[in-house]
């Protein structure tokens, strides 16, 4: 069976289910008695098992199966949920994740999971997890030897309310055509249900290579008596023993509709998986997955449409044809709606990134022997897909940092008069054209003196420079490269290469990061990100007869300056802007714009900033604010000075986007 077309879906769904298991396990830890949560986990695990068996990933499916057994024990109140039990289950989930990642990376999903399987077994059979593989598989020691795959099939059919019987048939000693009898028995069995396995094998049976008895594994909706009676109807049968195969109690309600005699177990598995899908759909959202390239294509095409729309509007105005104007107006409105839908399609909730943190915090706080309470606020905040993909690693780093360096050990906290459990808050919210993500901890805060002395010692700043620094600037030092305040290097963070990478990543996304901290009270790392990387708000300006776009994010304000208000300092033209001396930058000169306009008495200036520095860009006129789609200039023109990209305006023309950062020295 060629499963390749489903591989992507399988990987995506597996990840979702693993995430769901993770989430619910964390919840279970909070309220160990809640069987509803156990059921949720069980359902996810079960679906995962079914899917992986269908796709032929045996290791994945068997490990899930073991985990399921443990969960079943919990469900039936045979196993008590405690920290050590959860640890093992979490480990198992980790292994599952690693396997899924392996499959996603083109591997076969194989992994040595003996240890975890043994631990799961130990829990299942009621032992304390000892770490050594001791117990034997309860299923295999009882009856016929079955492989993991068959076991999975059986387990699954049991879930569906079918019976798994071990049927032992003994032929009469005077039986002449044993193979014929066997054939007849099989005929009967196939009517009843499905033969999963037989011993001896079917070939051996057909060749009469057996004594008088043979046994089969039957999956059926009928009850024991019925099976027995039907087999006994075949003549020359001495006796028939039918008993339940699985050790676990079967669910009742036989459902006959599902019984389909199948030859190959793989196909059987397939139909089973199909039957499961309605249940699966109830859990998941109604979504389809689209390649982001297609969305980009859609957006490109849509922009073309917008340009033609503008032309159409022009034509209809010129023609002054009532009906045409009405239709064009309607079309404009519809395409406006369409635009916002297309733009929104690229937005995904930040939850996608956040949902892996509770698990991470749990693990880290255990590793570090700290007690941490994580609260997540605003996980539904939406961000552009491209930003989401990039923001994960910096956040991981900041959280690790907060846990490692920020929050103190319980003893330390108590000696400072704080509750032993530290709190960590992860908060996302929209504000204007930006999304803010804040990581707040109530830990030790940043020790300014220590930071400064370290920075000086590491040559990040000189003593003289550090003298004039305000708090903000001092905090920013910890994000400089070659800096680490941790006295000992730990596994978790603190090799001094981290925070500057975080800062660079965020800045490359067009965002900023600020730190606020109070000693012994805690720190706030605040990240400001643009809503999207592909659509930005710009101020369109005219320089002579050329149009340029200046990103709104870097603009402080616009102003009109009289010529006589211009001051000279060191042969440079500057203005006094709200008490600050701001240098003038003539775009016309920087870009060698051909002069077409007379010099005016007033200058229109756009005041932009980069950090604490400012510049006043001199333009000829302001056109207005607009949302534009950011486009690259292409490889051939990459690296043009002070131009960060281009955009296509409503009239179909290209306008260049100014990189104001390059203009500020």
């Amino acid at each position, binding site marked *: 069976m060629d499963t390749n077309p489903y591989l992507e879906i399988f990987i995506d769904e597996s990840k979702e289910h693993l995430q769901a298991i993770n989430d619910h396990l964390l919840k279970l830890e909070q309220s160990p008695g809640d069987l509803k949560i156990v059921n949720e986990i069980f359902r996810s695990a079960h679906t995962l098992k079914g899917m992986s068996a269908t796709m032929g990933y045996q290791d994945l499916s068997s490990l899930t199966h073991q985990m399921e057994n443990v969960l079943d024990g919990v469900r039936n109140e045979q196993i008590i949920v405690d920290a050590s039990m959860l640890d093992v289950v979490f480990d198992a989930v980790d292994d599952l994740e690693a396997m899924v990642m392996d499959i996603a990376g083109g591997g076969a999903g194989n992994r040595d999971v003996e240890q975890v399987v043994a631990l799961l077994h130990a829990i299942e059979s009621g032992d304390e997890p000892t770490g050594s593989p001791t117990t034997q598989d309860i299923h295999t020691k009882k009856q016929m030897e079955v492989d993991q795959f068959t076991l999975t099939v059986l387990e699954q059919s049991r879930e569906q309310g079918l019976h798994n019987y071990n049927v032992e048939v003994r032929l009469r000693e005077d039986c002449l055509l044993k193979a014929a009898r066997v054939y007849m028995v099989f005929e009967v069995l196939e009517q009843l249900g499905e033969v999963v396995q037989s011993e001896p094998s079917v070939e051996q049976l057909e060749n009469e290579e057996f004594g008088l008895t043979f046994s089969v594994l039957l999956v059926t909706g009928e009850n024991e008596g019925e099976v027995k009676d039907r087999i006994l109807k075949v003549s020359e049968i001495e006796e028939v023993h039918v008993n339940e195969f699985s050790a676990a109690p079967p669910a009742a309600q036989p459902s006959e509709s599902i019984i389909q005699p199948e030859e190959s177990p793989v196909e059987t598995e397939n139909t089973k998986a199909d039957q499961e899908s309605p249940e699966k759909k109830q859990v998941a959202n109604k979504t389809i997955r689209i390649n982001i390239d297609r969305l980009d294509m859609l957006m490109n095409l849509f922009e073309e449409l917008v340009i033609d729309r503008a032309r159409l509007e022009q034509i209809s105005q010129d023609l002054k044809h009532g009906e045409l104007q009405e239709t064009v107006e309607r079309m404009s409105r519809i395409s406006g709606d369409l635009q916002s839908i297309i733009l929104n399609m690229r937005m995904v909730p930040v939850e996608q990134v956040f949902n892996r943190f509770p698990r991470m915090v749990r693990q880290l706080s255990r590793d570090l022997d700290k007690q941490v309470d994580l609260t997540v606020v605003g996980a539904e905040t939406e961000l552009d897909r491209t930003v989401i993909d990039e923001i994960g690693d910096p956040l991981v780093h900041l959280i690790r940092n907060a846990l490692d360096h920020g929050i103190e050990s319980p003893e330390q906290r108590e000696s400072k008069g704080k509750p032993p459990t530290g709190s960590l808050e992860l908060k996302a919210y929209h504000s204007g054209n930006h999304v803010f993500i804040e990581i707040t901890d109530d830990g030790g805060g940043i020790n300014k003196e220590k930071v400064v002395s370290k920075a000086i010692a590491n040559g990040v700043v000189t003593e003289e420079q550090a003298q004039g620094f305000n708090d903000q600037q001092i905090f920013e030092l910890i994000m400089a490269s070659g800096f680490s305040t941790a006295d000992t290097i730990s596994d978790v963070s603190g090799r001094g290469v981290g925070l500057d990478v975080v800062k660079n990543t965020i800045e490359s996304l067009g965002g900023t990061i600020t730190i606020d901290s109070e000693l012994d009270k805690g720190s706030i790392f605040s990240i400001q990100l643009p809503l999207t990387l592909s659509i930005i708000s710009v101020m369109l300006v005219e320089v002579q007869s050329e149009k340029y776009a200046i990103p709104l994010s870097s603009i402080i304000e616009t102003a009109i300056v009289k010529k006589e208000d211009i001051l000279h300092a060191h042969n440079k033209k500057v203005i006094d802007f709200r008490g600050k001396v701001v240098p003038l930058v003539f775009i016309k000169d920087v870009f060698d714009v051909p002069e077409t306009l007379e010099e005016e008495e007033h200058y229109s200036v756009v005041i932009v900033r980069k950090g604490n520095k400012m510049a006043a860009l001199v333009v000829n006129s302001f056109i207005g604010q607009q949302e534009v789609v950011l486009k690259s200039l292409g490889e051939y*023109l990459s690296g043009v000075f002070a131009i960060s990209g281009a955009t296509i305006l409503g009239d179909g023309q*290209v306008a260049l986007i100014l990189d104001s950062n390059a203009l500020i020295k």
Partner: protein
Amino acid sequence: MTQETKQQVKVLVFQLNDEEYTVPVENVGSIERMMPITRVPGAAEFVKGVINLRGVVTPVIDLRQRFDLEEMAATEQTRIITVSIEEIDVGLIVDGANDVLDLDEESIEPPPEVVGTIEAEYIEGVAKLDRRLLILLNMSKVLSKEDLESLKELEQ
């Protein structure tokens, strides 16, 4: 027609200063009428700017300027040929483009010392077809890396 022995190349023929040039058809994306071009400050002189090619911002090169021919205002015949060379898409401004031909590879000769006014380094070869003389351009030379480097120097 005995085509088994003759290797043929399909080329697009365009005019520049009354001379005929060719580019392989497989490199050509499309032929566009003249359209508004946005100047890119700081780019090389022969880079006229960028155009909006169906939603994709594409740089445009003025071949006249590239070959040091005198400038000429665009006419009805002026075309922008978009070509894709080594993964880079660019538009070429030419005086006109209206012909696609099959050239026998045999008929292509190495460039003579002097052909027209264009320096030989941009020329890959010439082909004679009846009375026409077709010049085969070496497109990667036309866009050459040295020019890219000179672009980068401009930045500094």
